[in-house]
């Protein structure tokens, strides 16, 4: 029992640590890299890191997806206890729903960003973010 608990912690922490690492990499890309494409990639990675973090909150070790529940026994009344029993072993569905939405939004933002990068390249003939400063002060 102790072992599993320990195991669980490692897994959970590993998720958090990975997520934070991914976020840091994304931030690095977005803030330091000079190429617009790399900036967009950095933002995208940052986004994935956040999504990972979000999922890991609702994660239960060796849990199942919230749609795979034990079969609903016929004539089982829908009481609170029964619902609890059914949902045992399920990961929390809410973060997953959130992440799905966040992924869609992130996809949309990335698409807009890439199209802007194309426009910027056509307009300025460069992808260096330091050279695209017509608007300032």
């Amino acid at each position, binding site marked *: 029992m102790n072992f599993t608990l320990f195991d669980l912690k490692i897994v959970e922490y590993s998720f958090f640590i990975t997520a934070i690492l991914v976020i840091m990499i994304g931030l690095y890309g977005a803030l330091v890299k*000079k190429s617009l494409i790399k900036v967009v990639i950095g933002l995208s990675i940052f986004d994935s890191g956040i999504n990972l973090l979000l999922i890991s909150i609702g994660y239960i070790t060796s849990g199942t997806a919230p749609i795979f529940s034990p079969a609903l026994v016929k004539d089982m009344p829908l009481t609170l206890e029964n619902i609890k029993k059914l949902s045992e072993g399920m990961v929390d569905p809410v973060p997953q729903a959130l992440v799905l939405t966040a992924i869609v939004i992130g996809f949309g933002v990335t698409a807009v960003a890439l199209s802007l990068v194309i426009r910027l390249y056509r307009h300025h003939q460069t992808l260096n973010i330091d050279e695209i400063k017509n608007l300032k*002060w």
Partner: protein
Amino acid sequence: MNMIYILFTLMFGGAILTFLAHKVSGLLRDTLFVLTVLASTVLFYTKIHTGDTVDFSISGLSLQWGINAYGRIFSMIVLGLGVMASFYSVSYMKGKERLGYFYFNFLISLMSMMGILMSHDLVSFFIFWEMMTWSSYFIVIYNGKNVQRSGINYIIFSALGAYAMLMAIVMVYAHTQSLMIPDMMQAFPFFPAAYKIWLPILFLTAFTVKAAMMPLHVWAPDAYADSPMAYTSVFSGALSKMGIYGMIMVFVTMVNYLPDDTWFRETIAWLGAITAIMATLWAIAQDDARKLLAWSSVAQLGYIITGVAVGTPLAMLSALFLSVMHALFKATLFMAVGAIEKQTGTTKFTEVTGLIRKMPWTFISSLLAIIGLAGIPPLGGFVGKWMLYESLINSNHYILVIAIFFASTSAFLYCYKFLFGFFLGQEEKEWEHVKEAPALMVLPMIIMATLLLVFGVFPGIVLKPIDLGMQTLGYSTTAGTFWSMSGLFNEWGNQIMMRPLAYAIGGTFLFFLIILTVKGFKETRYVTTKDISSSGEVPLEHENLTFSEGFYQPFLRAVCPVMKRRMMTYYQGFGQGMEAFFDYLRRVYSGNGQTYAIYVIVFVVILLLFKNSLFG
């Protein structure tokens, strides 16, 4: 509906109708404009009585309009000048552009001045104050001459004053929960000590800006000189008096309750005197009549401020009397300059000369006004200045008397310059075609000059309402002690013994004047200005004998060390420094998207580092 509402509806509606009528026809517009001013004047003097009030509330603030005897003194100036200037401007502004705009702002500024006098609460006072500011601002820039300089200067200083007043108002409101001016007056003695100092300072900032006191006067010369003369008469005559109106209230209700008010009064009185001296010197140095009169306005307001600050009943009486007189003579003079500008197209002494025969009525009214300005009996200016000197001496301000006396005598120099430059001197070919200004322009000048004479001989006519107003402010009546209305001549000042002597001297002077005129009448011979000889040489036709260039150079050389430092340069330096600083500061918006993203991260990091001290 209450008459007070009708008055404001009339003026505001008249302004809008005049503005709209501009699109229809010029005659309709002019008629509406004059009618609005006339009708509101008649309405005010027939239907609105001292003590009438109306109460209403806006968004939970209870407000009150009404008129008391003190406001009536100034309403006399505002409406009187308003009527005169409205007739004048119909003729003066003929043929100019954007007349709808001009008349609209003219009426709005008249209305807001009446509003200031009729506000019994601080919020409507402030609203009308600001309306007065923007409406007069729009007229200052009407001519389009250096709008970015004179206009912006005017708006900056006005707004500085107005915001100081707003701050004072909210301080009072937060402290007393009431916006009524009488409530403020009653509560003032019980305010905390810091409030007692700050409230008068803040209010005085607002009022001294409008009254153009050093060091807040720098907007005035430009603004007076650059607005159309038809409005400058109101601007300098009435609008600046709103500052005096407020100052008197502050002195009577606040400064009197200061634990130690002497330093306060002395400072303001001295600032007023310095304003008078410096502005007089600057007026002497001007070659443009508009600038000269503008500086002279500043100087005259300096005397009034000194009188207000000294604050004895006689000083207050003289300040109020001088306010009325200054409105009359300065408006006449500005109108005269306007008439000359209209007829000749210039207002420079160096260009126009010898108009005395071409514009006789303008000359006579300017002459009377100049005599009034210089403070020579028997015109109104003398009465006011006499009382001012007397009050200063009685309250032991001897050095102040010397200062004021210096300014007052130096004023003779620019007075003479004005008369000589325009009217006397050689008649030139260039100005042969010049005719007298239209009757509509001449009449107001003559009426006001005559009034000046009447008030000089019978000052009681003006002193009576002033006395009533001062009683509203809490002074005991001054009638009988400082002045009285007798059958033939009025008396003023408290050294009545002087009077027979003065009249005797005046009478003798007049007697000889008449005798000499009658005696010399037969020998009169009309000559041209070239009919002279200097050093045995007779001047040729084209030779210019007028020496308007470099007038008073020796005098100016003598006083130039004082005039070297100008307030304006300091303000300009400050303004430029600020703008350079702003320019430097705005570089935080570097234009690089990545920098902005870094700002975000840095901001987060800072918040995280200081989260314990920021959020408990």
